[in-house]
């Protein structure tokens, strides 16, 4: 039996890297006495996998990990038990049951992620936000209107030119920040900082001189089987739904 945990990461927890968040959850499972399953062998480990790692410095309202359970536990109860023992700056938002098959795992189905990038008064603090210039609304439209956006992408061995335009689904300048909807996951993963740098250059700014804070809003999966009309479905014309909406709550 498999469950999907959606959690938030905020405040000082943004300085805790992905591997340490994993370690934290392992300890949370034990403290909260979640009936999680283990692998066999001499050093058994918990069966748990994260949908998409989150970089240091980034906060999020929509992170996911899938776990295997040995016995059922109520969704509400599980979330409460975890929240009692989780560090300040992390919060379990929901606990839903998902299908057994591997093809439904968060890691496999992740296809997109939505971010809000806010402008900061100074790189010294992510707490002091600056309004987005009014002119950027139109700039964002023009940015997205381009046929191709070619960037140099560094790999381990070399640099190569990549057109990132197909992987930018939306970009919109709102008062509170730049909201972007980007390809994510194992196939085409586009990093928000890279897109932001390109946008800033496009808007005539020097990216090194514009301090920003990135916040992930949610992670999405492609799901053709779910009709696009359901309330939770993100209408993108591409049938993207949040990972959370693919599970069911159990009492």
């Amino acid at each position, binding site marked *: 039996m498999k469950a999907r945990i959606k959690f938030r990461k905020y405040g000082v927890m943004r300085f805790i890297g992905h591997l340490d968040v994993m370690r934290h959850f*392992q300890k949370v499972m*034990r403290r909260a006495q979640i009936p999680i399953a283990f692998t066999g062998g001499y050093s058994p480990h918990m069966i748990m996998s994260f949908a998409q790692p989150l970089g240091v410095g980034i906060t999020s309202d929509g992170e996911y990990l899938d776990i295997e359970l040995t016995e059922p536990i109520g969704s509400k109860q599980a979330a409460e038990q975890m929240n009692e023992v989780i560090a300040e700056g992390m919060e379990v938002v929901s606990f839903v049951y998902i299908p057994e098959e591997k093809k439904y795992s968060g890691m496999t189905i992740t296809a997109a992620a939505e971010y809000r990038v806010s402008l900061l008064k100074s*790189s010294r603090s992510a707490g002091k936000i600056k309004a987005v210039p009014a002119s950027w609304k139109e700039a964002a439209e023009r940015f997205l209107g381009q046929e191709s956006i070619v960037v140099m992408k560094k790999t381990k061995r070399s640099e190569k030119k990549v057109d990132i335009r197909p992987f930018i689904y939306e970009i919109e300048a709102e008062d509170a920040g730049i909201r972007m909807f980007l390809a994510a996951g194992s196939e085409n993963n586009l990093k928000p900082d890279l897109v932001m740098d390109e946008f800033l250059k496009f808007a005539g700014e020097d990216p090194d001189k514009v301090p920003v804070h990135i916040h992930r809003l949610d992670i999405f999966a492609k799901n053709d089987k779910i009709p696009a009309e359901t309330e939770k479905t993100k209408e993108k014309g591409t049938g993207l739904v949040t990972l959370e909406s693919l599970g069911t709550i159990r009492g």
Partner: protein
Amino acid sequence: MRKLALNDEILLKIEKPARYIGNEVNSVMKDPEKVDIRFAMCFPDVYEIGMSHLGIQILYDMFNQWEDVWCERVYSPWVDLDKVMRERSIPLFALESQEPVKDFDFLGITLQYEMCYTNILQVLDLAGIPLKAADRSDADPIVIGGGPCAYNPEPLADFFDLFYIGEGETSYRRLLDLFKENKKNKGTRQDFLESAAQVGGIYVPSFYDAAYHADGTLAAFTPNNEHAPSTVNKQVVMDLDDTYYPKKPVVPFIKVTQDRVVLEIQRGCIRGCRFCQAGMLYRPTRERSAERLKEYAREMLRSTGHEEISLSSLSSSDYSCLRELVNFLIGEFKGKGINISLPSLRIDAFSLDVMERVQDVRKSSLTFAPEAGSQRMRNVINKGLTEEEILNGAGQAFEGGWNKVKLYFMLGLPTETEEDMKAIPELADRIARRYYEIPKEKRNGKCQITTSTSFFIPKPFTPFQWARMYSNDEYIARAATVKHAFHDQLNRKSLKYNWHDAEITVLEGVFARGDRRTGKVIEEAYRLGCIYDAWTEVFDYEKWLKAFENTGVDMAFYNERERGMDELFPWDFIDIGVTKEFLKREWQRAMEGKVTPNCREQCSGCGAAGFGGGVCFEGKN
């Protein structure tokens, strides 16, 4: 939301920002308005090392159980942050409140090894506290040192207001009450130090004067303040079942050295190895009951979520309820995915059986610490481990499927000859031979015997406190002798040899038995840029040599001189319960190669029975 002392720009630039943000599960937050005493507890090394120390966890828990005290943690900023803090004048802060250490009432620093001494100055300096106690004002925190190196506090005497000699559970409450009282009475720093000097185990270095003979040895060590006693008594907890223990230890976010639940099963050691300081300092041996430890194990695993539990003590095989406890831990937790990490145990049928149950035999190795290669040398150091025992233990293990052995030895022990050095590779070879006695089809490929040597450093309060050390070159020559002898062994291809650095050894030697005059070398080394001397990638021996040169302190005076039997030592004003007479007797017996029985075989009258408990009174109730 939590406020942080460091801004985002800094935190995102430095290595492992999690070292500096606090917020760990089980860390204690209090309202500063509702406490009387702010205590900053410091381990002067990097977070991952400091967080692994049980003693601090015990004291942190004890202090925070007291409503009027808020104890917070401080560690040395790593060199990257150290640089940033100096450039931008950011004062050192405590992890919980993120507030400057300078505004605290106390800064407690644990003294675990000599090579952290420059880090103490780093901590004081970054905090903005004058390095020397004499330069501090009423507004500065009281700087107090404790831990094993406090048993010879003299090299650090200038930098500390107080030292606490012994186990922290006993006198702190009294000390803090005196502090509160003094504050209420609007007393000065001096007033507080005078009242503190009368508390058991408290040593106020400024209340004592040292005088020296023309040859440089100590002539007299006398109180200069009427409130200071001439002898400071070590503090011990006599009932380990009825004292503080951290049932909710702080759980770090990042991986630290000791990332597990630690059960301290006993304090002290019955063995009496003559080189071992801990074996003398922590006498008498006292045990915790298995029942109490089982409770702690359950509670601590639940409160931390750790996936591993380990036992901590000297010579764990001597703990009388070891079988019961280990069997309980395996039975209760092994099935729940909890690793049981065993301490080094005497190799026998029981330990081999337990090891087989908790670890993968193919991957794990056996550890022996014969400490010396020849039987003669082992008798000198009173390490009651015979070659027969080692070969039998290894043989049993080899037949059980093990093929890796680690051996630990010391070089430079008193009376050591070339034969004793060569006996090290010979013993390693005999263990390998024992392995190859097993029929080929029954053994698990080749065996791997890894031998490591460190250089012996005489420590205060041991029977070897009179012993001489050697020069850097002499140490390297001894290691080379051992290395060459390894090449002559039959099974050399199965033997591996590592040796420790000699540069750190000679420095440790100076500060282990140094007097007050060596403090200026530490200060000068720090001024020259030394910090993190225990870290090979940072350690700079040239700067240390320069510091000795600049201060005119002679390393050889402290290291290469065999001390006279009647010499007054800088640490003689401390009474650890074990008498100097006993240590002298043991030194004589060492010279005669005579073994002294352990505490359970026969009492040797060391003096620790004066504490009125522990192993000295076992079975006598």
